[in-house]
Protein backbone atom coordinates (compact mmCIF):
# COMPACT_ATOMS: atom_id res chain seq x y z
CA UNK A 1 0.00 0.00 0.00
CA UNK A 2 1.27 3.48 -0.78
CA UNK A 3 0.58 6.81 0.74
CA UNK A 4 -1.86 7.58 -2.06
CA UNK A 5 -4.10 4.67 -1.24
CA UNK A 6 -4.94 5.54 2.31
CA UNK A 7 -8.30 7.25 1.85
CA UNK A 8 -10.58 4.35 2.40
CA UNK A 9 -8.27 2.00 4.16
CA UNK A 10 -10.28 2.05 7.36
CA UNK A 11 -13.90 1.35 8.03
CA UNK A 12 -16.33 3.90 9.43
CA UNK A 13 -18.06 1.45 11.71
CA UNK A 14 -18.88 4.01 14.37
CA UNK A 15 -19.53 7.67 13.67
CA UNK A 16 -20.20 9.47 16.96
CA UNK A 17 -23.13 11.85 16.97
CA UNK A 18 -21.11 14.62 18.50
CA UNK A 19 -17.58 15.87 18.49
CA UNK A 20 -15.47 16.02 21.60
CA UNK A 21 -12.19 17.57 20.56
CA UNK A 22 -11.33 20.47 18.26
CA UNK A 23 -7.90 21.98 17.64
CA UNK A 24 -7.65 25.50 16.21
CA UNK A 25 -4.55 26.60 14.34
CA UNK A 26 -4.58 30.29 15.24
CA UNK A 27 -1.35 30.72 13.31
CA UNK A 28 0.98 28.55 11.29
CA UNK A 29 3.95 30.76 12.07
CA UNK A 30 6.40 29.82 14.81
CA UNK A 31 9.47 31.42 16.34
CA UNK A 32 11.11 28.00 16.70
CA UNK A 33 12.25 25.47 14.13
CA UNK A 34 12.05 22.16 15.98
CA UNK A 35 13.75 19.24 14.29
CA UNK A 36 10.74 16.98 14.16
CA UNK A 37 7.80 19.38 13.82
CA UNK A 38 5.09 17.98 11.58
CA UNK A 39 3.62 21.42 10.86
CA UNK A 40 5.02 23.41 7.95
CA UNK A 41 5.62 27.06 8.85
CA UNK A 42 4.06 29.91 6.93
CA UNK A 43 2.70 33.37 7.61
CA UNK A 44 -0.96 32.45 8.00
CA UNK A 45 -3.31 33.50 10.79
CA UNK A 46 -6.88 32.58 11.57
CA UNK A 47 -9.19 35.56 11.15
CA UNK A 48 -12.10 36.18 13.50
CA UNK A 49 -14.50 35.44 10.62
CA UNK A 50 -13.00 31.97 10.18
CA UNK A 51 -12.88 31.48 13.95
CA UNK A 52 -16.58 32.30 14.22
CA UNK A 53 -17.38 29.62 11.62
CA UNK A 54 -15.27 27.11 13.52
CA UNK A 55 -16.92 27.97 16.83
CA UNK A 56 -20.38 27.69 15.29
CA UNK A 57 -19.44 24.33 13.79
CA UNK A 58 -18.11 23.00 17.09
CA UNK A 59 -21.24 23.80 19.05
CA UNK A 60 -23.56 22.82 16.23
CA UNK A 61 -21.95 19.39 16.11
CA UNK A 62 -22.07 19.10 19.88
CA UNK A 63 -25.81 19.51 20.39
CA UNK A 64 -26.17 17.26 23.39
CA UNK A 65 -24.17 19.50 25.65
CA UNK A 66 -21.39 16.98 25.91
CA UNK A 67 -17.86 17.69 26.99
CA UNK A 68 -15.93 19.64 24.40
CA UNK A 69 -12.16 20.08 24.39
CA UNK A 70 -10.96 23.10 22.44
CA UNK A 71 -7.23 23.47 21.90
CA UNK A 72 -5.28 26.47 20.60
CA UNK A 73 -2.39 25.24 18.54
CA UNK A 74 -0.02 26.31 15.81
CA UNK A 75 2.70 27.33 14.95
CA UNK A 76 3.17 29.06 18.24
CA UNK A 77 -0.33 30.10 19.30
CA UNK A 78 0.88 32.73 21.79
CA UNK A 79 2.35 34.72 18.90
CA UNK A 80 -1.33 35.53 18.37
CA UNK A 81 -2.32 36.06 21.99
CA UNK A 82 -4.58 39.01 21.15
CA UNK A 83 -6.42 36.89 18.58
CA UNK A 84 -6.79 34.03 21.08
CA UNK A 85 -8.42 36.45 23.52
CA UNK A 86 -10.97 37.39 20.86
CA UNK A 87 -11.64 33.76 19.93
CA UNK A 88 -12.15 32.84 23.59
CA UNK A 89 -14.73 35.61 23.74
CA UNK A 90 -16.47 34.09 20.71
CA UNK A 91 -16.53 30.72 22.43
CA UNK A 92 -17.79 32.00 25.76
CA UNK A 93 -20.42 34.20 24.13
CA UNK A 94 -21.84 31.35 22.09
CA UNK A 95 -25.41 30.52 23.19
CA UNK A 96 -24.51 26.85 23.66
CA UNK A 97 -21.39 27.53 25.71
CA UNK A 98 -21.41 25.72 29.05
CA UNK A 99 -18.44 26.42 31.31
CA UNK A 100 -18.65 23.06 33.01
CA UNK A 101 -18.47 21.21 29.70
CA UNK A 102 -15.92 23.15 27.69
CA UNK A 103 -12.25 22.63 28.43
CA UNK A 104 -9.88 24.99 26.61
CA UNK A 105 -6.14 24.58 26.35
CA UNK A 106 -3.14 26.32 24.83
CA UNK A 107 -0.14 24.29 23.71
CA UNK A 108 2.92 26.49 23.62
CA UNK A 109 6.63 26.10 22.93
CA UNK A 110 7.29 27.97 26.17
CA UNK A 111 9.16 30.92 24.72
CA UNK A 112 6.35 33.43 25.24
CA UNK A 113 4.88 33.94 28.68
CA UNK A 114 4.05 36.74 31.07
CA UNK A 115 1.67 37.63 33.88
CA UNK A 116 -0.98 38.94 31.50
CA UNK A 117 -1.05 35.61 29.65
CA UNK A 118 -1.17 33.66 32.93
CA UNK A 119 -3.95 35.80 34.35
CA UNK A 120 -5.95 35.45 31.16
CA UNK A 121 -5.66 31.67 31.19
CA UNK A 122 -6.53 31.45 34.88
CA UNK A 123 -9.53 33.70 34.58
CA UNK A 124 -10.80 31.78 31.56
CA UNK A 125 -10.10 28.27 32.89
CA UNK A 126 -7.63 27.53 30.12
CA UNK A 127 -5.20 24.65 30.57
CA UNK A 128 -1.64 25.64 29.70
CA UNK A 129 0.71 23.04 28.20
CA UNK A 130 4.40 23.58 27.44
CA UNK A 131 6.68 21.59 25.20
CA UNK A 132 10.19 20.98 26.50
CA UNK A 133 12.41 18.10 25.45
CA UNK A 134 14.67 18.10 28.50
CA UNK A 135 17.86 19.64 29.81
CA UNK A 136 19.76 22.32 27.94
CA UNK A 137 21.92 20.00 25.85
CA UNK A 138 18.83 18.26 24.44
CA UNK A 139 16.45 21.22 24.21
CA UNK A 140 19.03 23.39 22.45
CA UNK A 141 19.63 20.67 19.88
CA UNK A 142 16.05 19.76 19.07
CA UNK A 143 14.16 23.02 19.64
CA UNK A 144 15.99 26.02 18.21
CA UNK A 145 14.91 29.51 17.27
CA UNK A 146 14.77 30.45 13.61
CA UNK A 147 18.29 31.86 13.90
CA UNK A 148 19.64 28.59 15.22
CA UNK A 149 19.92 29.74 18.82
CA UNK A 150 18.81 27.26 21.47
CA UNK A 151 15.57 27.87 23.36
CA UNK A 152 16.48 26.10 26.62
CA UNK A 153 16.99 29.13 28.84
CA UNK A 154 13.75 30.83 27.81
CA UNK A 155 11.67 27.67 28.17
CA UNK A 156 13.16 26.76 31.54
CA UNK A 157 12.32 30.24 32.82
CA UNK A 158 8.76 29.91 31.53
CA UNK A 159 8.26 26.53 33.18
CA UNK A 160 9.44 27.88 36.51
CA UNK A 161 7.20 30.93 36.25
CA UNK A 162 4.21 29.04 34.92
CA UNK A 163 4.37 26.54 37.79
CA UNK A 164 3.64 29.43 40.14
CA UNK A 165 0.30 29.88 38.40
CA UNK A 166 -0.34 26.30 37.27
CA UNK A 167 1.02 23.81 39.82
CA UNK A 168 -0.07 20.91 37.64
CA UNK A 169 1.40 22.35 34.45
CA UNK A 170 1.63 19.58 31.84
CA UNK A 171 4.99 19.49 30.08
CA UNK A 172 5.37 17.52 26.90
CA UNK A 173 8.78 16.09 25.93
CA UNK A 174 9.42 14.52 22.55
CA UNK A 175 12.20 11.95 22.21
CA UNK A 176 13.73 10.58 19.05
CA UNK A 177 16.10 7.80 18.08
CA UNK A 178 18.93 10.15 19.05
CA UNK A 179 17.59 11.19 22.47
CA UNK A 180 15.84 7.99 23.62
CA UNK A 181 18.66 7.03 25.97
CA UNK A 182 18.46 10.42 27.72
CA UNK A 183 14.78 10.06 28.69
CA UNK A 184 15.57 9.37 32.38
CA UNK A 185 17.64 12.56 32.50
CA UNK A 186 14.76 14.45 30.92
CA UNK A 187 12.40 13.21 33.64
CA UNK A 188 14.92 14.15 36.35
CA UNK A 189 15.34 17.59 34.83
CA UNK A 190 11.61 18.29 34.70
CA UNK A 191 10.99 16.91 38.20
CA UNK A 192 13.79 19.10 39.56
CA UNK A 193 12.07 22.09 38.01
CA UNK A 194 8.94 21.13 39.94
CA UNK A 195 6.96 19.56 37.11
CA UNK A 196 4.56 16.84 38.29
CA UNK A 197 2.72 16.18 35.08
CA UNK A 198 5.09 14.80 32.45
CA UNK A 199 4.09 13.67 28.98
CA UNK A 200 6.65 11.70 26.99
CA UNK A 201 6.04 11.22 23.29
CA UNK A 202 8.20 9.51 20.69
CA UNK A 203 9.01 11.35 17.48
CA UNK A 204 6.95 9.23 15.14
CA UNK A 205 8.78 10.42 12.05
CA UNK A 206 12.27 9.59 13.37
CA UNK A 207 14.45 6.95 11.71
CA UNK A 208 13.80 4.25 14.28
CA UNK A 209 15.74 1.04 13.76
CA UNK A 210 16.04 -2.38 15.37
CA UNK A 211 18.88 -1.18 17.59
CA UNK A 212 16.57 1.44 19.13
CA UNK A 213 13.78 -1.08 19.57
CA UNK A 214 16.15 -3.12 21.68
CA UNK A 215 16.73 -0.10 23.94
CA UNK A 216 13.05 0.60 24.63
CA UNK A 217 12.65 -1.96 27.42
CA UNK A 218 15.82 -0.84 29.18
CA UNK A 219 15.05 2.89 29.01
CA UNK A 220 11.38 2.49 29.91
CA UNK A 221 12.42 0.18 32.72
CA UNK A 222 14.61 2.93 34.20
CA UNK A 223 11.67 5.32 33.97
CA UNK A 224 9.47 2.81 35.75
CA UNK A 225 11.99 2.52 38.59
CA UNK A 226 11.91 6.30 38.97
CA UNK A 227 8.12 6.21 38.88
CA UNK A 228 8.04 3.69 41.73
CA UNK A 229 10.58 5.67 43.73
CA UNK A 230 8.45 8.80 43.40
CA UNK A 231 5.55 6.83 44.91
CA UNK A 232 7.69 5.40 47.70
CA UNK A 233 8.88 8.91 48.55
CA UNK A 234 5.25 9.99 48.85
CA UNK A 235 5.59 12.35 45.89
CA UNK A 236 4.07 10.53 42.94
CA UNK A 237 4.47 12.02 39.50
CA UNK A 238 2.30 11.53 36.47
CA UNK A 239 4.45 10.07 33.69
CA UNK A 240 2.23 9.53 30.71
CA UNK A 241 4.06 6.54 29.28
CA UNK A 242 3.81 4.57 32.51
CA UNK A 243 0.57 5.89 34.04
CA UNK A 244 -1.39 5.68 30.83
CA UNK A 245 -0.47 2.08 30.20
CA UNK A 246 -1.02 1.02 33.82
CA UNK A 247 -4.56 2.37 33.53
CA UNK A 248 -5.17 0.43 30.37
CA UNK A 249 -3.75 -2.76 31.83
CA UNK A 250 -5.86 -2.55 34.99
CA UNK A 251 -8.99 -1.65 33.07
CA UNK A 252 -8.61 -4.49 30.62
CA UNK A 253 -7.78 -2.61 27.42
CA UNK A 254 -8.83 0.47 25.51
CA UNK A 255 -12.54 1.11 25.15
CA UNK A 256 -13.95 2.03 21.78
CA UNK A 257 -14.49 5.72 22.39
CA UNK A 258 -11.10 6.10 24.04
CA UNK A 259 -9.51 5.28 20.72
CA UNK A 260 -8.71 7.57 17.86
CA UNK A 261 -11.80 9.41 16.64
CA UNK A 262 -10.06 11.32 13.91
CA UNK A 263 -12.47 12.83 11.44
CA UNK A 264 -15.56 11.87 13.43
CA UNK A 265 -15.18 13.03 17.01
CA UNK A 266 -11.96 14.97 16.62
CA UNK A 267 -11.06 17.71 14.15
CA UNK A 268 -8.29 20.19 13.53
CA UNK A 269 -9.00 23.50 11.80
CA UNK A 270 -6.36 25.23 9.69
CA UNK A 271 -6.08 29.00 9.56
CA UNK A 272 -8.35 29.26 6.52
CA UNK A 273 -10.95 26.88 7.89
CA UNK A 274 -9.66 23.72 6.26
CA UNK A 275 -10.70 20.70 8.30
CA UNK A 276 -8.35 17.83 9.12
CA UNK A 277 -8.97 14.66 11.10
CA UNK A 278 -6.14 15.37 13.54
CA UNK A 279 -3.74 18.23 14.28
CA UNK A 280 -0.83 16.02 13.38
CA UNK A 281 -2.17 15.73 9.84
CA UNK A 282 -2.42 19.43 8.99
CA UNK A 283 1.08 19.55 7.50
CA UNK A 284 1.32 22.52 5.12
CA UNK A 285 -2.47 23.06 5.27
CA UNK A 286 -2.75 23.00 1.50
CA UNK A 287 -6.38 21.96 1.60
CA UNK A 288 -5.53 18.70 -0.14
CA UNK A 289 -3.43 16.16 1.72
CA UNK A 290 -5.54 14.69 4.54
CA UNK A 291 -8.03 17.56 4.24
CA UNK A 292 -11.67 16.53 4.69
CA UNK A 293 -13.44 19.83 4.04
CA UNK A 294 -13.58 23.53 4.76
CA UNK A 295 -15.74 24.98 7.49
CA UNK A 296 -16.05 28.39 5.79
CA UNK A 297 -17.18 26.90 2.51
CA UNK A 298 -19.44 24.48 4.34
CA UNK A 299 -17.94 21.52 2.52
CA UNK A 300 -17.39 19.33 5.50
CA UNK A 301 -16.80 15.71 5.06
CA UNK A 302 -20.28 14.24 5.58
CA UNK A 303 -20.05 10.84 3.98
CA UNK A 304 -16.60 11.23 2.54
CA UNK A 305 -14.88 10.92 5.87
CA UNK A 306 -14.11 7.29 6.39
CA UNK A 307 -11.10 7.94 8.52
CA UNK A 308 -12.04 6.21 11.72
CA UNK A 309 -9.30 3.81 12.66
CA UNK A 310 -10.42 1.37 15.28
CA UNK A 311 -7.56 -1.04 15.11
CA UNK A 312 -4.63 -1.88 12.96
CA UNK A 313 -5.19 -4.14 10.01
CA UNK A 314 -1.76 -5.74 10.08
CA UNK A 315 -2.16 -9.49 10.29
CA UNK A 316 0.35 -9.52 13.14
CA UNK A 317 -1.85 -7.11 15.13
CA UNK A 318 -5.18 -8.82 14.73
CA UNK A 319 -3.75 -11.99 16.24
CA UNK A 320 -1.59 -10.38 18.91
CA UNK A 321 -2.16 -10.83 22.65
CA UNK A 322 -1.29 -7.16 23.19
CA UNK A 323 -3.77 -5.80 20.66
CA UNK A 324 -6.33 -4.54 23.19
CA UNK A 325 -3.62 -2.77 25.18
CA UNK A 326 -1.73 -1.34 22.23
CA UNK A 327 -2.17 2.05 20.54
CA UNK A 328 -2.18 0.41 17.13
CA UNK A 329 -5.34 2.44 16.43
CA UNK A 330 -3.57 5.83 16.43
CA UNK A 331 -4.26 6.91 12.86
CA UNK A 332 -1.84 9.83 12.66
CA UNK A 333 1.05 7.85 14.15
CA UNK A 334 0.43 5.10 11.64
CA UNK A 335 0.15 7.60 8.80
CA UNK A 336 3.42 9.33 9.60
CA UNK A 337 5.32 6.09 9.93
CA UNK A 338 3.77 3.91 7.24
CA UNK A 339 1.71 6.22 5.02
CA UNK A 340 -1.51 4.48 5.98
CA UNK A 341 -3.93 5.27 8.82
CA UNK A 342 -4.32 1.67 9.86
CA UNK A 343 -0.94 0.11 9.17
CA UNK A 344 1.31 -0.13 12.16
CA UNK A 345 5.07 0.35 11.87
CA UNK A 346 7.74 -1.85 13.36
CA UNK A 347 8.70 1.05 15.62
CA UNK A 348 5.18 1.36 17.05
CA UNK A 349 5.04 -2.39 17.60
CA UNK A 350 8.39 -2.46 19.43
CA UNK A 351 7.55 0.64 21.48
CA UNK A 352 4.16 -0.66 22.58
CA UNK A 353 5.45 -4.12 23.39
CA UNK A 354 8.14 -2.61 25.58
CA UNK A 355 5.92 -0.17 27.46
CA UNK A 356 3.12 -2.68 28.02
CA UNK A 357 5.61 -5.14 29.50
CA UNK A 358 7.21 -2.46 31.65
CA UNK A 359 3.84 -1.21 32.89
CA UNK A 360 2.78 -4.76 33.71
CA UNK A 361 5.95 -5.33 35.72
CA UNK A 362 5.45 -1.96 37.42
CA UNK A 363 1.98 -2.95 38.60
CA UNK A 364 3.40 -6.20 39.96
CA UNK A 365 6.21 -4.45 41.81
CA UNK A 366 3.95 -1.78 43.25
CA UNK A 367 1.56 -4.47 44.40
CA UNK A 368 4.45 -6.09 46.23
CA UNK A 369 5.30 -2.74 47.83
CA UNK A 370 1.66 -2.44 48.88
CA UNK A 371 1.16 0.67 46.75
CA UNK A 372 -2.42 0.91 45.69
CA UNK A 373 -3.13 1.70 42.05
CA UNK A 374 -6.88 1.21 42.16
CA UNK A 375 -7.52 4.77 40.97
CA UNK A 376 -5.89 3.88 37.67
CA UNK A 377 -8.81 1.60 36.96
CA UNK A 378 -10.94 4.69 36.76
CA UNK A 379 -8.72 6.23 34.14
CA UNK A 380 -7.75 9.29 36.13
CA UNK A 381 -4.26 8.56 37.45
CA UNK A 382 -3.61 12.31 37.47
CA UNK A 383 -5.48 12.42 40.73
CA UNK A 384 -2.33 11.08 42.39
CA UNK A 385 -0.55 14.23 41.43
CA UNK A 386 -3.51 16.31 42.53
CA UNK A 387 -3.38 14.75 45.95
CA UNK A 388 0.33 15.35 46.17
CA UNK A 389 -0.29 18.95 45.19
CA UNK A 390 -2.94 19.35 47.85
CA UNK A 391 -0.45 18.38 50.52
CA UNK A 392 2.29 20.70 49.37
Amino acid at each position, binding site marked *: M*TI*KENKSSTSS*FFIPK*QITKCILFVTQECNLRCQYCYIEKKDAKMTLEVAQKVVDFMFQKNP*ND*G*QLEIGFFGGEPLLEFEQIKQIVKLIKNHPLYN*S*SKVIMSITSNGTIFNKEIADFM*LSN*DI*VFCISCDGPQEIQNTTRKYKNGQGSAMAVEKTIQEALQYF*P*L*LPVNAVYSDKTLKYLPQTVDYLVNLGVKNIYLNPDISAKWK*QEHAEQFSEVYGVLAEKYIQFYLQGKPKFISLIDGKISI*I*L*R*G*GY*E*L*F*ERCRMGSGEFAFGTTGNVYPCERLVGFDDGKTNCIGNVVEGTIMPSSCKIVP*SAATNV*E*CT*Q*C*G*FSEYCMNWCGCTNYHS*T*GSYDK*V*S*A*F*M*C*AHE*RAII*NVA*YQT*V*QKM*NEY*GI*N*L*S*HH*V*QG*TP*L*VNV*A*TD*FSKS
Partner: protein
Amino acid sequence: MSININDLEALTDYLNYKFAKIANGRPVGGIPKDPIISEKTVKEFILKKNLVAIPLDKKIQYFQGAFDAPADTGAIVNNTDVRSKLLTVAEKPVAAADSLTKQILICGGIKYPHLHCEGEIYKLTNDQWNQFAIIALEELRNKFAKVNTISFDNFVKFAEVVEEEV
Protein backbone atom coordinates in the same frame (compact mmCIF):
# COMPACT_ATOMS: atom_id res chain seq x y z
CA MET B 1 -17.39 -8.82 27.17
CA SER B 2 -15.92 -9.04 23.71
CA ILE B 3 -17.43 -7.19 20.78
CA ASN B 4 -17.04 -7.97 17.13
CA ILE B 5 -16.58 -4.51 15.64
CA ASN B 6 -17.78 -5.75 12.27
CA ASP B 7 -21.14 -6.67 13.74
CA LEU B 8 -22.84 -3.28 13.59
CA GLU B 9 -25.95 -4.40 15.42
CA ALA B 10 -24.04 -5.92 18.29
CA LEU B 11 -21.80 -2.90 18.42
CA THR B 12 -24.74 -0.51 18.56
CA ASP B 13 -26.34 -2.49 21.35
CA TYR B 14 -23.10 -2.47 23.23
CA LEU B 15 -22.60 1.28 22.85
CA ASN B 16 -26.20 1.99 23.81
CA TYR B 17 -25.76 -0.19 26.85
CA LYS B 18 -22.62 1.65 27.83
CA PHE B 19 -23.85 5.15 27.04
CA ALA B 20 -27.24 4.66 28.62
CA LYS B 21 -25.49 4.37 31.91
CA ILE B 22 -23.82 7.74 31.67
CA ALA B 23 -25.30 11.18 31.35
CA ASN B 24 -25.88 12.45 27.83
CA GLY B 25 -23.77 9.76 26.35
CA ARG B 26 -20.60 10.84 28.04
CA PRO B 27 -18.94 10.17 31.33
CA VAL B 28 -19.67 12.66 34.08
CA GLY B 29 -16.63 11.70 36.05
CA GLY B 30 -13.62 9.67 35.12
CA ILE B 31 -14.46 6.70 33.00
CA PRO B 32 -17.43 5.09 34.68
CA LYS B 33 -17.35 1.82 32.91
CA ASP B 34 -16.23 -1.59 33.74
CA PRO B 35 -13.10 -3.14 32.38
CA ILE B 36 -14.27 -4.78 29.17
CA ILE B 37 -12.18 -7.87 29.36
CA SER B 38 -12.34 -8.45 33.08
CA GLU B 39 -16.05 -7.82 33.60
CA LYS B 40 -16.63 -11.47 34.39
CA THR B 41 -13.74 -11.45 36.80
CA VAL B 42 -15.03 -8.28 38.45
CA LYS B 43 -18.49 -9.79 38.92
CA GLU B 44 -17.10 -13.02 40.33
CA PHE B 45 -14.93 -11.09 42.75
CA ILE B 46 -17.81 -8.90 43.94
CA LEU B 47 -19.97 -11.97 44.54
CA LYS B 48 -17.19 -13.88 46.25
CA LYS B 49 -16.47 -11.02 48.64
CA ASN B 50 -20.14 -10.15 49.17
CA LEU B 51 -19.47 -6.54 48.25
CA VAL B 52 -22.36 -4.06 48.39
CA ALA B 53 -22.66 -1.15 45.96
CA ILE B 54 -22.27 2.35 47.33
CA PRO B 55 -25.73 3.99 47.66
CA LEU B 56 -26.44 7.01 45.48
CA ASP B 57 -26.63 9.56 48.32
CA LYS B 58 -23.20 8.44 49.50
CA LYS B 59 -21.81 9.15 46.06
CA ILE B 60 -22.80 12.79 46.39
CA GLN B 61 -21.17 12.98 49.78
CA TYR B 62 -17.99 11.49 48.41
CA PHE B 63 -17.95 14.02 45.62
CA GLN B 64 -18.50 16.93 47.97
CA GLY B 65 -15.68 15.54 50.04
CA ALA B 66 -13.39 16.15 47.09
CA PHE B 67 -13.47 19.84 47.89
CA ASP B 68 -13.17 19.54 51.64
CA ALA B 69 -10.71 16.70 51.84
CA PRO B 70 -8.96 15.93 48.56
CA ALA B 71 -7.44 12.76 49.97
CA ASP B 72 -10.82 11.04 49.86
CA THR B 73 -12.32 12.37 46.73
CA GLY B 74 -14.54 11.79 43.79
CA ALA B 75 -17.68 10.08 42.69
CA ILE B 76 -19.01 8.50 39.60
CA VAL B 77 -22.67 8.87 38.84
CA ASN B 78 -24.97 7.70 36.17
CA ASN B 79 -28.10 9.52 37.16
CA THR B 80 -29.03 12.83 35.54
CA ASP B 81 -30.45 14.43 38.70
CA VAL B 82 -27.43 13.54 40.71
CA ARG B 83 -25.24 14.72 37.89
CA SER B 84 -26.76 18.19 37.88
CA LYS B 85 -26.29 18.44 41.63
CA LEU B 86 -22.69 17.43 41.26
CA LEU B 87 -22.03 19.99 38.57
CA THR B 88 -23.44 22.66 40.88
CA VAL B 89 -21.01 21.54 43.54
CA ALA B 90 -18.22 21.58 40.99
CA GLU B 91 -18.78 25.24 40.33
CA LYS B 92 -17.72 26.09 43.85
CA PRO B 93 -14.26 27.64 43.95
CA VAL B 94 -11.48 25.26 44.80
CA ALA B 95 -8.56 26.58 46.79
CA ALA B 96 -5.54 27.24 44.59
CA ALA B 97 -7.15 25.33 41.77
CA ASP B 98 -6.20 25.99 38.20
CA SER B 99 -8.45 24.68 35.49
CA LEU B 100 -6.59 21.40 35.27
CA THR B 101 -7.00 20.75 38.98
CA LYS B 102 -10.66 21.58 38.69
CA GLN B 103 -10.98 19.23 35.76
CA ILE B 104 -9.36 16.42 37.71
CA LEU B 105 -11.64 16.95 40.68
CA ILE B 106 -14.72 17.14 38.50
CA CYS B 107 -13.58 13.96 36.86
CA GLY B 108 -13.69 12.26 40.22
CA GLY B 109 -10.95 9.88 41.12
CA ILE B 110 -12.00 7.99 44.22
CA LYS B 111 -8.91 7.69 46.30
CA TYR B 112 -9.78 4.44 47.95
CA PRO B 113 -9.79 1.05 46.22
CA HIS B 114 -12.97 0.37 44.32
CA LEU B 115 -14.44 -1.45 41.37
CA HIS B 116 -17.03 -0.45 38.82
CA CYS B 117 -19.57 -3.00 37.75
CA GLU B 118 -22.79 -2.48 35.81
CA GLY B 119 -22.92 1.20 36.67
CA GLU B 120 -22.33 0.73 40.36
CA ILE B 121 -19.30 1.35 42.53
CA TYR B 122 -18.02 -1.14 45.08
CA LYS B 123 -15.62 -0.09 47.80
CA LEU B 124 -12.76 -2.46 48.60
CA THR B 125 -10.29 -2.72 51.42
CA ASN B 126 -6.59 -2.55 50.56
CA ASP B 127 -6.32 -6.30 51.05
CA GLN B 128 -9.28 -6.94 48.76
CA TRP B 129 -7.77 -4.69 46.11
CA ASN B 130 -4.42 -6.47 46.25
CA GLN B 131 -6.23 -9.79 45.89
CA PHE B 132 -8.13 -8.44 42.91
CA ALA B 133 -4.97 -7.05 41.30
CA ILE B 134 -3.31 -10.47 41.52
CA ILE B 135 -6.30 -12.06 39.78
CA ALA B 136 -6.34 -9.36 37.10
CA LEU B 137 -2.61 -9.68 36.45
CA GLU B 138 -2.90 -13.44 36.18
CA GLU B 139 -5.64 -13.00 33.58
CA LEU B 140 -3.38 -10.63 31.73
CA ARG B 141 -0.40 -12.97 31.79
CA ASN B 142 -2.43 -15.52 29.86
CA LYS B 143 -3.27 -12.96 27.20
CA PHE B 144 0.25 -11.70 26.91
CA ALA B 145 1.50 -15.16 26.15
CA LYS B 146 0.39 -14.63 22.57
CA VAL B 147 2.44 -11.68 21.38
CA ASN B 148 3.38 -11.00 17.79
CA THR B 149 6.06 -8.80 16.31
CA ILE B 150 6.20 -6.60 13.25
CA SER B 151 9.64 -7.01 11.79
CA PHE B 152 11.89 -4.01 11.14
CA ASP B 153 13.23 -5.79 8.05
CA ASN B 154 9.86 -5.79 6.34
CA PHE B 155 9.16 -2.27 7.52
CA VAL B 156 12.37 -0.92 6.00
CA LYS B 157 11.42 -2.39 2.63
CA PHE B 158 7.93 -0.90 2.94
CA ALA B 159 9.27 2.55 3.87
CA GLU B 160 11.60 2.52 0.89
CA VAL B 161 8.68 1.81 -1.45
CA VAL B 162 6.69 4.68 0.07
CA GLU B 163 9.60 7.11 -0.28
CA GLU B 164 10.10 6.13 -3.91
CA GLU B 165 6.44 6.62 -4.80
CA VAL B 166 6.09 9.92 -2.91
